C-alpha cells in the first residue's frame, strides 16, 4: 500500500500526462541567404516553430491564407505555436521570391 501522498503525486502526474498533447515538437525553419529551408515541413497543431533568421535582412513568414504572419528581425530567432491544421503556403512579404510550404496535421 502506497502512502497517500505518493498516490496523489502519481495521480497528478498521470492526469498531467493526459492533459498535455503528446509529443508537441519544436521544429526549426531557417532563413539564410534569402532561402527558406527546409522548403517543405510537416508538423502538427501544437508544435512550436523556431524561425531562425540568419540574414542581415528582416524577413517575414506570411501565410497566403492569412493563418499566420511572423516577423523576423535580422539575425534573430522567433517562435510561434501552430494553431490551425492545413497545408499552408507562406512567403516573405519583403522578398516574395522566398517561398515555402508548411503542412500542419490536426
Amino acid at each position: 500500500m502506497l502512502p497517500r501522498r505518493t498516490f496523489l503525486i502519481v495521480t497528478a502526474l498521470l492526469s498531467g500526462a493526459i492533459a498535455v498533447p503528446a509529443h508537441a515538437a519544436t521544429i526549426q525553419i531557417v532563413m539564410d541567404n534569402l532561402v527558406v529551408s527546409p522548403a517543405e515541413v510537416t508538423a502538427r497543431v501544437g508544435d512550436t516553430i523556431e524561425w531562425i533568421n540568419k540574414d542581415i535582412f528582416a524577413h517575414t513568414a506570411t501565410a497566403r491564407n492569412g493563418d499566420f504572419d511572423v516577423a523576423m528581425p535580422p539575425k534573430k530567432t522567433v517562435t510561434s505555436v501552430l494553431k490551425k491544421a492545413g497545408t499552408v503556403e507562406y512567403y516573405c512579404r519583403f522578398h516574395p521570391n522566398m517561398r515555402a510550404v508548411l503542412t500542419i496535421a490536426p
Partner: protein
Amino acid sequence: MFVRLSAAIAALSLLGGAALAQGAKPTDPQIAHIAYTAGVIDVAAGKQAITKASNKDVKAFAEGMVRDHEAVNKQALDLVKKLKVTPEDNDTSKTLSKQAADKLAELGKLKGAEYDKAYIANEIAYHKAVNGALETLLIPSASNAELKSLLQTGLKLFQGHQQHAEHVAAGLK
C-alpha cells in the same frame, strides 16, 4: 560572348545610359563600385519616397529598400576592407549616379498618387535593370569568390525587391 556582353550593356544602358568602354570586362574594384553605387541610388530614392509617398504600402516598400540596401552596402564595405580592395569609380558608376539624380529631381516634382505610381514603376524598372546587369555582366566578371558570392546574394535580394514592387504596383491599380 559578344551577344551576351551586348545584352549586359543594354541592361546597364537602360539603367543609366552607361556603357563600359569597348565592352571591356569590369575589374573587381569597378564591380564593387558599380554595385555599391546601385545600392546608394536606391537608398536615396527610398528616402525621398518615405517623405513623399501617400500610400502606406508604397511607404512600407520604401522603408524596406532603405533598410535592405543599407544593410547590403554595409556588408559590401566590410568585404572590400577585408579584401583590401579599393572600389574604383568608373564611367558606369558616374552615369548611373547622374541618371539617378535626374530621376530623383523628376520624381520630386510629382505628388500624391501620381508620385506613388511613378516611384514604384521606376523601382520595378530599376531593379530589373540591375538584375540584368548582375546576371549577365557583374557576377560573371567578378574574379574574387567572396565578391561573387555577395553579388549573388544581392541578385536574390534585388529579385525579391522587384517582385515586392510588382505586388505593390498591382495594388495601386
